[in-house]
C-alpha cells in the first residue's frame, strides 16, 4: 500500500504513526478493544480501513481482540492488535497461543502505569509482561521504540519479522510516544527497498482437504510430555537460529567509557543526551540502547561494557530492564550494574547526569541498587 506520493515530513501523534505504518506495511486487518493510551491507533485505523477496504473489528474485550487477530492471521491476513496495561494482561492469553502455534500476529503495546488501572499516561512497566508474559516459555520478538520515526520504521518491520520468523512480534511504545506530536518522515517501504513479507494462509488454501491436499490441522494441546518437548525443541532451535538476524541495538561512545548508561524506549533519548552532557563535563560516559528487548542484545552489551567500571540502568520501572541487563551480562562482564529507577514516571537527561555524579562520588557503595525518591 503506497501511503504517500513521495517521502514527506509529517507532524503527528505516535498512535497515528502506528496506524499509517501498518497501512504502509500492507496490514489488512486490526482487531482491538478501547484502552488508553493506544486508542488513536484504532481511531486512525478505522478511518484508513474504511478508505482502503481493509478489516477492522472492535471486539468485546482484549481476549477476543487477540484471538480474532489470530483467526485473521490464520486466514492469511497481516493482522494486528494494540493494547496497554490491564489489556496487555488479558492479551497474554491469545499471545501464548500465537507462541505455541507460531502465529505471526503483530501487537502494539503503548505502556501505561501499573499495577492495576494505575495511570493512563506512561510507564516502562510492561517490559517483563511484553517480553515474558504467558504460561510456558513462549518465544516472541519485542522491539522497543524511542521516537515517532521508530514507531513508523519498527511497525513496518514488525510485520516483516513476524511473517519471516513466524514468531509473534511486538512494538513496545508508551503513552508519551502514543500521545505526543513529533515530526517524522513517512515513506513507502518499497521506495526504500524495505522488504515486505508476503502473508500465507494457514487454513482455507485451494483444494478439498483430504482429496487434493492433506487437511491443515493446528493444535496447541499435546497428549504426552514428549510430544510437547518435540515442538518446544523445534521452536527453541528456530528462535536461536533467527536471533542473530533479529537482534538490534544502538550505542555511542562506549569504546573508552568508564560508565555506560543503559536505557530503552523513550528514556534512551534522555540517556543519550545525558552521556553527551557528561562527556562535556569530562566524564567518559557511553550510551547503550537495546532495541530488541527480546531477543536481548546481551553479547553486544557485554562488548560495549568491556572497558567500563560500571553501568547505570535507567528506566521508568522498578528494575525490569535492569533484570534483563543483569541476566544478559551474567558471566560476560565484570562491570558493576547500578540502577536509576522511577517506576511510572518520566526521566530527564539532567536527572541522569545528577544520578551518575552521585553514584560516582559514592563509589564504595557497590552492588547496591538505588531507587529515586
Amino acid at each position: 500500500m503506497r501511503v504517500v506520493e513521495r517521502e514527506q515530513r509529517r507532524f503527528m501523534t505516535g498512535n497515528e504513526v502506528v496506524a499509517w505504518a501498518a497501512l504502509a506495511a500492507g496490514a489488512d486487518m486490526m482487531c482491538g478493544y478501547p484502552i488508553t493510551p493506544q486508542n488513536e491507533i484504532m481511531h486512525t485505523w478505522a478511518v484508513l480501513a474504511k478508505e482502503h477496504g481493509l478489516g477492522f473489528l472492535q471486539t468485546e474485550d482484549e481476549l477476543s481482540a487477540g484471538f480474532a487477530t489470530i483467526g485473521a492471521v490464520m486466514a492469511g491476513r497481516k493482522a494486528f492488535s494494540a493494547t496497554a496495561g490491564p489489556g496487555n494482561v488479558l492479551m497474554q492469553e491469545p499471545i501464548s497461543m500465537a507462541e505455541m502455534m507460531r502465529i505471526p500476529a503483530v501487537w502494539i503495546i503503548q505502556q501505561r502505569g501499573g499495577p492495576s488501572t494505575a495511570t493512563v499516561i506512561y510507564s516502562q512497566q510492561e517490559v517483563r509482561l511484553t517480553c515474558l508474559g504467558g504460561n510456558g516459555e513462549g518465544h516472541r520478538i519485542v522491539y522497543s521504540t524511542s521516537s515517532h520515526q521508530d514507531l513508523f520504521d519498527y511497525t513496518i518491520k514488525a510485520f516483516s519479522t513476524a511473517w519471516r520468523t513466524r514468531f509473534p512480534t511486538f512494538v513496545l511504545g508508551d503513552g508519551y510516544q502514543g500521545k505526543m506530536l513529533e515530526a517524522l518522515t513517512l515513506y513507502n517501504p518499497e521506495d526504500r527497498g524495505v522488504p515486505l513479507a508476503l502473508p500465507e494462509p494457514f487454513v482455507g488454501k485451494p483444494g478439498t482437504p483430504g482429496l487434493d491436499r492433506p487437511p491443515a490441522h493446528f493444535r496447541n494441546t499435546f497428549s504426552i510430555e514428549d510430544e510437547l518437548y518435540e515442538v518446544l525443541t523445534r521452536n527453541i532451535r528456530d528462535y536461536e537460529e533467527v536471533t542473530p538476524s533479529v537482534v538490534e541495538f544502538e550505542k555511542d561512545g562506549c569504546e573508552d567509557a568508564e560508565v555506560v548508561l543503559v536505557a530503552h524506549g523513550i528514556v534512551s533519548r534522555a540517556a543519550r543526551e545525558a552521556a553527551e552532557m557528561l562527556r562535556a563535563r569530562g566524564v567518559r560516559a557511553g550510551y547503550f540502547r537495546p532495541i530488541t528487548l527480546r531477543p536481548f542484545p546481551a553479547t553486544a552489551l557485554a562488548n560495549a561494557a568491556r572497558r567500563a567500571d560500571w553501568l547505570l540502568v535507567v528506566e521508568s520501572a522498578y528494575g525490569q530492564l535492569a533484570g534483563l541487563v543483569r541476566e544478559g551480562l551474567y558471566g560476560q562482564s565484570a562491570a558493576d550494574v547500578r540502577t536509576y529507577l522511577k517506576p511510572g514516571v518520566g526521566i530527564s537527561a539532567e536527572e541522569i547526569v545528577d544520578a551518575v555524579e552521585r553514584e560516582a562520588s559514592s563509589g564504595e557503595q557497590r552492588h547496591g541498587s538505588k531507587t529515586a525518591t
Partner: protein
Amino acid sequence: MSDPARTNLQEGAPKSAPRSAAPEEPPEEHPSKASGEAQERASECLPEHVPDTAPEVVQMRPERMPRSWREETKPHPFCPGCGHGIILRALGEAIDDLGIAARTVYGCDIGCSLLSWNLFNLDTVQTHHGRTIPVIVGMKRARPDLVGIAYMGDGGAYAIGAQHLVSAAIRNEKITVIVCNNTVYAMTGGQLAPTTLSGQKTTTTPYGRDPLETGLPVSGPELVTCIRTEGVYAARGTVANFRQLKLFIKRALENQMAGRGLSFVEALSTCPTNWRTSPKETWHFLEHEMGKAFKIGEFTRGKAEGQERREGRLSSPAEAGIPRGGNEGAGANH
C-alpha cells in the same frame, strides 16, 4: 408458517425426547445403536414445519463414516457412550450433504471438544478454552467466503466464553456455533457446569446443585434468541434424535452460507464417564432429566438483515430529543 422466525417450541417441544422414550422400552446397549433407533422415530419428533423438507436431507450411510471425516484418525478418542461422536457425525454428514468441505474451517475449544482437532478432513484449529468463537470470527471476517464452525462444550460457550457468544449474537457474526451440552465439565473431572441440572450431583456439587447457591441451568439457544432473532438461527437438538440434530446443523450452516447471521445449535449430549451411569441410566438421564430441563426445537430460523425493524433507530441523543447530560435540574438536589 407465516412467520418462520417465530419459535415453534410450543408445537415441537412436547413431542420431543421425553415422549419418545417410554419407560418400558428396553434400554439400548450402545449409544450409536440407540441413535439409529432414534432416527427411525425422528419424523415424529421434528417440529411441525420440518417434514416437508426432511426427505431430501435424510441420507444415512450407517456403515460408512462421513466423507468429511478423516479415516486415518479413527476410531475417534471419545469415551464409550460419549455423545460427541454423534454430534460430530451429524456435522460431518451435513457438511457432506452441502458439499462445503473445501471451504469449511473448523475450530474446537478446550475440554473434550479439543479431541476433535484432527477428526475431520477439514482445515481445523484448536483454540483456548472459551476462545473458539473469536478465532472463527477473525477467520470469517478475513475470509467471508469460508464457512466457519466453532465447536465447544457448555463450559466454553456459557461460562468462560459467554461474553464471546453474547457479543457474536449482538454483532450477528456470520459463523456457526455448535455447543455440546452434557451438563458437566467432562475433561477436567465432572465439575458443575452452567448447564448442570438442579439437584444434579457433580464433583463440585457433591450434594447436588442447589439453585439458591449456584443458580439454575442456563438455556443457550434461548439466550441467543433473547439477544437477537433477525438473521439468527438458533436451535437445540439432542443426540437422541440424530436426523433432527443433523437437520438443525445443516440449517445452521445454510443460514451462515446465506450470510444472514449467527447460527447456533446446542446438542444435548451424554457423559456416562462423569455421570457415572450405566447405558440405561445414561439414556434415561438424557431423554428424561435433560429433556425436561431443555426444550428441543428451533427457536428462530433467521430472516434477512434487511427485514430488521427500523423503529427506534436514532443516530444521536440530540436527534432523539434527549438533552445532553440529561440530569440538569436534578443536580441541584445532590
